[in-house]
């Protein structure tokens, strides 16, 4: 294996573990990342000449640690942190030694602490996901900025400020107390789900070619399940994303046109992923802690029944949405519930529910206008035209825009 490939693999497999461990030791996330970044650069220049070390992870850890000590020595402002390190120096050294003798799995996995820090309530909610993508997965600010529709320099500055806040506010690298755990876990899972949806108003409308951070989000969810096997909601989230991912290719037809969920060709769904989702959801249910992600996964599971030739059970969907809205009354859930009610009780009832939503909240919410247009059209009302216009104007995806344009002319 060549040095670059070895460094890449080490990066993917252990970047987050190394950052988490170094950050937990130094209490300075940005400094830990910088030191590790330098260690990776050094690996790229020395491994080709001297050969790949037997334990690349340990090599990176030791090199990053040395690098961090050098920087801390040079920096007067980091004197306090340096003192903290020298106390731990012996510990780190002994850990590093034990790492180098083994398969690299002996230093503690602090990634769970890191996930909780990224989604800490003291950090702006909009930065939870970007922080996770950067610190746990090593993505750069420009990659993250594009997905979240933010200028790259702005995203870079926000991440730097968030890390400074974590350091300066002394946010502890500890797991939350038991009483805070459900709420803190929800923030972690919501941030992972945001990496999956990355600004799409509905995953089912998302452009399937744009894989975005779908794989990263699934990876993070699997990590949460692995680190917290008893957390039902972590499994619920993993199930939810697997259901959505299973249908990725079916969201567009051969001509690139948008295909609504209830019209997707089930032969283009991934049966393996749906089976994996069902498995996670069943595991979650056995833990008896209901939560929003399990409900959202259960909703997807109803749609997945079409794979077995079953019709969509809209009554079950109405009930599940009702439960979801009680736990988490998001605009998306309310609009989806209206769609389910329109199927069971008729378009008038769906519209009646839509009309109760506050005007300010729905003004620029594309799914609201798309559903409203659809229901008005079913009732042959002229106002459908105007609702279609709004939905078209608010659409970001060209395939959905074309789909709505075609429907508005029916």
């Amino acid at each position, binding site marked *: 294996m060549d040095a670059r490939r070895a460094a890449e693999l080490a990066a993917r497999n252990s970047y987050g573990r190394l950052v988490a461990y170094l950050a937990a030791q130094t209490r300075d996330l940005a400094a830990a990342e910088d030191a590790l970044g330098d260690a990776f650069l050094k690996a790229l220049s020395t491994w080709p000449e001297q050969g790949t070390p037997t334990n690349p992870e340990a090599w990176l850890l030791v090199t990053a640690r040395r690098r961090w000590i050098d920087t801390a020595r040079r920096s007067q402002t980091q004197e306090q942190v340096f003192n903290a390190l020298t106390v731990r120096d012996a510990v780190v050294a002994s850990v590093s030694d034990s790492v180098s003798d083994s398969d690299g799995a002996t230093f503690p996995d602090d990634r769970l602490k890191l996930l909780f820090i990224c989604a800490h309530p003291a950090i702006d909610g909009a930065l939870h996901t970007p922080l996770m993508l950067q610190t746990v997965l090593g993505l750069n600010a420009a990659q993250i900025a594009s997905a979240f*529709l*933010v200028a790259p320099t702005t995203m870079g500055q926000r991440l730097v400020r968030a890390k400074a806040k974590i350091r300066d506010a002394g946010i502890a690298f500890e797991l939350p107390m038991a009483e805070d755990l459900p709420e803190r876990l929800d923030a972690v899972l919501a941030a992972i789900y945001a990496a999956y949806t990355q600004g799409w108003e509905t995953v089912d409308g998302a452009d399937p070619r744009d894989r975005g951070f779908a794989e990263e989000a699934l990876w993070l969810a699997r990590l949460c399940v692995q680190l917290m096997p008893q957390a039902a909601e972590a499994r619920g989230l993993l199930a939810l994303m697997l259901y959505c991912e299973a249908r990725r290719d079916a969201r567009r037809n051969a001509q690139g046109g948008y295909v609504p969920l209830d019209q997707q060709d089930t032969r283009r769904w991934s049966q393996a992923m749906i089976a994996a989702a069902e498995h996670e959801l069943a595991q979650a249910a056995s833990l008896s802690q209901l939560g929003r992600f399990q409900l959202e996964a259960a909703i997807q599971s109803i749609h997945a029944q079409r794979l077995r030739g079953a019709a969509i059970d809209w009554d079950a969907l109405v009930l599940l949405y009702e439960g979801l809205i009680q736990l988490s009354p998001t605009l998306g859930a309310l609009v989806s519930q209206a769609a389910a009610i329109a199927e069971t009780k008729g378009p008038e009832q769906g519209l009646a529910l839509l009309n109760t939503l506050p005007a300010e909240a729905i*003004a620029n919410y594309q799914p609201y206008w798309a559903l409203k247009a659809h229901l008005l059209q079913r009732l042959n009302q002229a106002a459908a035209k105007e609702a*279609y*216009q*709004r939905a*078209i*104007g608010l659409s*970001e995806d*060209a395939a959905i825009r074309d789909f709505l344009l075609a429907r508005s002319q029916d």
Partner: protein
Amino acid sequence: MRYAILVYETEHDFANREQHMPAYRAYSQALAEAGIMVGGAELHPSHTGTTLRLQNGQRQVQDGPYADTKEQLGGFFLIDVADLDAALDWAARCPAASNCAVEVRPLAPANPA
């Protein structure tokens, strides 16, 4: 904060403007309904432009655009939103974002002190 959403179009887009009209009408209506539309205009294709410059006191007038590139400025929307994040959210909905490109630029204050 005021921003210009500069709409870039390919030659193909220019040639098929009629086809894109309904999408642009819906987009500008959405901007208006959101209460953020300040202005905007559609430009004729770049070959209809005339470029003028004074070089060493000599007038130079040439047919065509200043920069002859494949993608051309096809029009612009002026919007008034809280910040660049909000401007980018709206720019993403502009049909040109999926066909070619849009550029978001802040407007300088109308009356500099």
